[in-house]
């Protein structure tokens, strides 16, 4: 009991924090993100996985379920915007 209760949340917590930092850096400063918005959306999945792991380590499973199922809806909204903007001709300043 002691070992598993101790180590499992610890592993998931530290891993989640690492993914959050890596993903944040990747979304903001990652390669080719400034020209291609879709690359930035793909990078967004990394910090969102980190957030899901942190929820898991606190045992907020219901919040994690909601978070994971809200994510595709968010992607649909963003990708719709990208396609509309591409139809109008590229990036905006």
């Amino acid at each position, binding site marked *: 009991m002691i070992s598993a*209760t101790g180590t499992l949340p610890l592993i998931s917590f530290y891993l989640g924090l690492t993914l959050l930092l890596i993903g944040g850096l990747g979304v903001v400063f990652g390669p080719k993100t400034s020209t291609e918005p879709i690359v930035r959306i793909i990078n967004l999945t990394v910090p969102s996985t980190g957030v899901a792991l942190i929820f898991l380590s606190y045992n907020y*499973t219901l919040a994690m379920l909601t978070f994971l199922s809200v994510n595709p809806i968010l992607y649909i909204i963003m990708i719709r915007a990208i396609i509309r903007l591409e139809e109008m001709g590229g990036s905006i300043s």
Partner: protein
Amino acid sequence: MIGRILNSLAEPRVVPKIFAFAIAIVLVFSLPLPFHLNPEQVYPKPAPQLQMELAKKNIDISYNLAPYNRGGLPVDPDNRGIVKSQYKSPYEGWITAYLTPFSQWMRDVSYHLGTTIVAHPGGILDEILYYTRGLDTILESSILFTAFTIASWVILNRTRKMTGE
């Protein structure tokens, strides 16, 4: 000089940057503060994975609700769940222990389905979200409703007409 600064401030695109800068300054300067969690919270929950381990070892069937077991017996107002709320109410802890027949069946089958059981009507989160802090849920849903109204109105009455559909 001052006029130029003020003029550049008057452009809308600068405003989010100023806000971002202000928040970042406050956050970064607060990094050396000694953050600590006050252990006397309302609605505490057990240590992570503790209930899952107990469920694996114990024969006691109510631990199959892990990680959302909060005590109490199902459908029994005399034997309520343990809820430590801010202001006491005579009806607290009623939902926490409640299980529908379907979720009772799920509890008997396996100890891996705790989340589904709690998301089903009944459980600690329904107690918090629908009873003790019900206004939060109303507001949250109203915000979503307002945003959907704005978005669908703009789509139906503006964007579509402009594309000629």
